[in-house]
């Protein structure tokens, strides 16, 4: 499996494995300043290379009314 699943709230995206998280977010139009990324519950930085078949969960950080 050469793709990676990226999950943000109820939205799921598929991107190609082998690219950095930073590039994947840019391709999806997600501002990296507005999210944190976790792999198996651990925070990762956006220079991480995405691995085939894995799921990256994004945590939205903006709040406030």
């Amino acid at each position: 499996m050469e793709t990676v699943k990226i999950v943000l709230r109820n939205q799921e995206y598929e991107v190609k494995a082998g690219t950095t998280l930073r590039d994947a977010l840019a391709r999806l139009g997600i501002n990296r300043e507005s999210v944190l990324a976790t792999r198996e519950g651990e925070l990762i930085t956006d220079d991480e290379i995405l691995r085939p078949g894995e799921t990256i969960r994004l945590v939205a950080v903006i709040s406030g009314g």
Partner: protein
Amino acid sequence: MKCRKCSQKAVINMRQHKLALCNIHFPQWIVEQTQRFIAKYRMFSPDDRLLVAVSGGKDSLSLWDILWQLGYQADGVYIALGIDGGFGYSQKSQELCEKFANQRGLKLIVVDAPQQIGLTIPELAAVTQRGKNKPCSVCGLTKRHILDQIAREGQYDVLATGHNLDDEAAVLFGNTLNWNVGYLYRQSPVLPARHAGLVRKVKPLCRFYEREMAAYALVRGIEYIYEECPHAAGSTTIYYKTLLNQLEADRPGAKLSFYLAFLQAKEKGLFAQPLGDGGEEGIGAGGEELHTCPGCGGPTTVEGLCAFCRMVEKVK
């Protein structure tokens, strides 16, 4: 990416500081920096009794956790607002605050606003028609009133809130767009008590990005309410934060320098003190005389009942 301090794997890269840290050094750094800001802005001392306003969100619970680690005498206060949103928003938030306090043996004061007022916040907003079909204005007024009241009655020295840099930058952005000079003059990490019915208000997280506070909560294993308040969707604050993050993505440090340069400009006297405001007790930030509300003992800019007591009186 490796941690600057130990070369282990970094969990966060703070581009505005050119600093990446691991899951051990990042929370330590946050705690140390918070203490630095408390001292720098002369927020409070170890002898002061603090009241922390907690909502169940990442910022306020993280603030309480940091103050607890630093050894301050900090109680928490949670205001139940009766907001459901189809998923029990207020109920869930309260449970998370209670769990947090129990795990650390901390004192949490829970105030049930609907029980006090007789209506939930959305019901109160609908009845008073205050705030253009959104309960946020009524909610803000109610929370400010109850927090002041609890701080006053409990004889706390300081009321601490979890406002982060993104909150402060968004407010600053809005006030700059509209040149609300009075509000700009008033915005500060510390708001002095201007009336016997008020306590000093402080924002110890005002120099941390919202992203850092979310990371702190995750690394520390703090369970917080991830869902947004159902009434916050489409808010101006979120819109301004989104715009500022677009700027930050292209120019790391833009949000921080926007806020810090503002504080420096204020110190240098860029914003004139409103006429009549000598900063003394009994005078509001707009220079107006402050009276004491006969209903609650809190401050009011007009003689008679304060805005909150007038609102509650109307719906009785």
